[in-house]
C-alpha cells in the first residue's frame, strides 16, 4: 500500500495540510500502541507496525519536497540516492557559485538574505513541478527535484553557518 492510500488521500502533488493531519490523527487513534496496552502480544506487534507505517507515510507526505520525490518515484522517475554525485552541469555551476557566496558571507544578516533567496527559489521550483507532472515530463521532473534537493541541503548549510556566526559573536 502506498503512503497516500494508507492515509486515504488522493496521490497528488498538492495536499491540504489540515486534511493530511486529520487523516493521520484518525488512523493513529485506531493504531497507536497506547490503544493496545494490556492486549495480547500479537495485537500489540501489529499495532506497532501499523503505527510505524502511518508515521512513515505522514513524515513523507508532510514535507512538500519529500512528497514530490515520493510521488515522482511512484510515477517511475528514478532519482539517484542521496549524496550521490550530480550529473547536471547547470546545477553544478549554480551549486558552486552559491557555496562561494555563502563562504564569503561574514554576518548573520547576510546569511539570512541568502537563505531567504534559497527559500524563494525552492518555492518557485516546487510551484513549477505541477505542470511538469501534468505533462509527465520525467526528465524535467528529475532535473527539478535534483535541484530542489540541492537547495534544501544548501539551506541546511546556511543554517549551520548562521549558528556558527552567532556562537562566535557570543
Amino acid at each position: 500500500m502506498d503512503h497516500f492510500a494508507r492515509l486515504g488521500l488522493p496521490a497528488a502533488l498538492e495536499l491540504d495540510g489540515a486534511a493530511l493531519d486529520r487523516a493521520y490523527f484518525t488512523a493513529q487513534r485506531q493504531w497507536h500502541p497506547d490503544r493496545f496496552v494490556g492486549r495480547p502480544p500479537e495485537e500489540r506487534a501489529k499495532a506497532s507496525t501499523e503505527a510505524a507505517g502511518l508515521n512513515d507515510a505522514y513524515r513523507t507526505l508532510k514535507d512538500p519536497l519529500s512528497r514530490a520525490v515520493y510521488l515522482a518515484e511512484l510515477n517511475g522517475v528514478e532519482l539517484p540516492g542521496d549524496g550521490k554525485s550530480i550529473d547536471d552541469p547547470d546545477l553544478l555551476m549554480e551549486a558552486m557559485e552559491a557555496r562561494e557566496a555563502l563562504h564569503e558571507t561574514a554576518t548573520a544578516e547576510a546569511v539570512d538574505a541568502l537563505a531567504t533567496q534559497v527559500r524563494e527559489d525552492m518555492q518557485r521550483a516546487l510551484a513549477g513541478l505541477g505542470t511538469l507532472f501534468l505533462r509527465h515530463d520525467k526528465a524535467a521532473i528529475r532535473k527539478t527535484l535534483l535541484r530542489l534537493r540541492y537547495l534544501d541541503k544548501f539551506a541546511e548549510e546556511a543554517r549551520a553557518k548562521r549558528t556558527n556566526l552567532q556562537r562566535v559573536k557570543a
Partner: protein
Amino acid sequence: MSLLEIHEPGETPLPHAGEASLAVGIDLGTTNSVVAIAREGIPAALHDETGKALVPSVVAYPAAGGVLVGEEARLLMAHEPRNAVASIKRLMGRGAADLHAVAGVLPYEIEPGSGQTDMVKLRIGGKARSPVEISAEILKALRARAEAALDKPVERAVITVPAYFDDAARTATRDAARVAGLEVLRLVNEPTAAALAYGLDKGSEGLYAVYDLGGGTFDFSLLRLEKGVFQVLATGGDAALGGDDFDRAVAERMLAERKTDGIADGIDEAAVKTALALARQMKEQLSERDQTSGRLDLAGTPSFHALTRADFEAMIATYIARTLDIARNVLIDADTTVSDVQGVVLVGGSTRVPLVRAEVAAMIGKAALTDIDPDEVVALGAALQAEALTGGGDTLLLDVTPLSLGLETMGGIVEKVVPRNTPIPVQLAQDFTTYQDGQTAMAIHVVQGEREMVADCRSLARFELSGIPPMTAGAARIRVSFAVDADGLLAVSAEERTTGMAQRIEVKPSYGLSHEDMADMLYDSLEHAEADVAQRLLTEARVEAKRSLLALDAALAKDGALLTTEERAAIDQGRTRLEAAIAGNDRDAINAAAEALETLSKPFAERRMDRGIREALAGLSLGELESRVGE
C-alpha cells in the same frame, strides 16, 4: 444464550471497577521525585504524613542496615556520605567509558566493569550497586507512598523521562521499575506530560511550547494540540544548563567580594558548598522582592553581601539568552515561527525566576502558563496518561526521537537511518553493500548523534553479520532495519537479501550516552557542519580511491601478463602516487592521482575486456554465436 463481546481493534476495554490495581504517574527526577494519581481526569500528587509531595531523589544504605529514601536519606548523607547517593539519574544507562563526563560531579567510588553488563556500578554502603538498583529503591518508596495513601496495591505506572533520554537510559529506567515491582505502561517524555497536565488540548487548538528549566538541565519542546491529540513536532535542549548556574554566579560574586575586602580565604569544597547554599537562598528571595542580602560565614570570618534583582538579572542574562537560542533552533526544526505559537508552559523550579518568565514571555509574545506547581506538573501529567491507558481514555500522545540514529559506513562516516524528530513508533530500513570481493562478514556499528563522523557520535551497539555468500564487491544487499517503539526504545536487525539465505541478527544497545553528551552533540553538529562536510568529502575520496586500488590489484594478479614491462612500471608508479595522496589530507590531490592512474590503466582495462569477450566466444560455432546474439 449469552453472546461473546468483541472489542473494536484498538479500543481498550474498561477494567472492572475496584478489581484492577491502580496505575500511578511518576516523575523520577534528578533532584526530587513525585508520585501522583488521576481519577476521572483530575490528577493529584500524593503527599506524605507531613504534607510534602516532593521526595528527594536520595538513597542511603545506613551502616546499621536497611535502606532509606528521600528526606531521611538526605539527612544521613551528612553523617555517612559514603553510604548515600544523590542524582543517580545522571548515571542511568551509562557505561564506564562515560564516567569522565561526570568525574568530579559525583563523588562516588566506581566499581571496575564487572562481567557481562557494561553498565557502571557504584560502591555505596560497602557494596557494588548499579544505577538501576538505586533508582529502583526510589521507585519502591514512591510505590509504598502511593499504596499507603490509596490503601490499594499499585502495580502499574507511567514514568516520565527527559525528552532527551537516549535508548539506554530509557531501558535502564524501565528495568528499575521492574525491579521495584512496577509494570511500566509507558515511558512518557517530561514536556509532553507537562502539556497533558495543563489540559491544553481542551482549549483552542494550536501550537504550544514547553520551556523546562530545572536545576541542571534545560529542555524545549514544541507540541501541536487539538482535541485529545498531543503531537510533538520538535525537541531540543542543553543538559548542562540550569538554576545551578545561577547559584554559582552569585556564589562566585560573594567570594570575589570577600577577596576585595581583604579576607583571605582558603577556598575548599566546604566553603564553596556554604557559599552556594546561601546563593541559592538569595536567588529564591529575589523572586519575591527587589533586593536581598546575606551573611556568609566562612572559617569564623563573616561577610555581608547585598544583591539587587537588577544585578542578579545582569549576571544570569547570558544563560537565559542561551536557552532562547536553543528554543529558536527548535522552532526552525519544526519549520515554524514564534508568531504561530499560542502559548508557553513553564516547567522546573528555575522558571520561578522573574527574568526567566519575562524573557520567555517576550520571546513567545504571550504570557506564560504557570498556574500549576512547576515541581509537580510533570507527575500530574503522567498520572493523567496512566488513567487514560488503563481506563480507555481518548488522549493520543504522538512523540518523536530526540537524536538521529545511524550506522557506521566505510571511512567512519555516519549514514543516518532515522533522523531526529521522527515520529515514533518508527521502522526504517536501509540497504548497504560489501566493499571487497568475496567479503563474507560485515561489522555493523549503531550510533546516535547529529555529526557526520562516527568518532563524534555516540556508539550504541556493535555486532557482526556473518555468512554472507562470497560475491563481487557491491553485489550483496544487506538490509539493516531500525525499529523504535512508542517508549523510544531501539531494536536493530540485519539480513542478507541477495541469496534468500537470510541471516537475521537483532540487537538491543547495551548502554547509552549521557543527557549532557546529547545536548553537546546536538549543538556541536550545528557548529561543525561545515568542517564535517569537508571531512566527509575527503573520506569519500579516500574510500573511492582505495576501492579502485583493490580492483586494480585484483586485475593485475589475474591478467598482469597482458602488460609490457614498461606499461606495468608506469601503472605501478601511478599506483604509488595514489597511495601517497591517500595518506595525505588533500582531497583534490587524491582525485587527481586516481584519475591519472585510471588513464594509465585504461589500455590494460580495454585489453582485459577484449580478452574476456574472446574467451566468451571461443569454441562457439557461427550458428551458436548467432543464437547467442539473438538471446
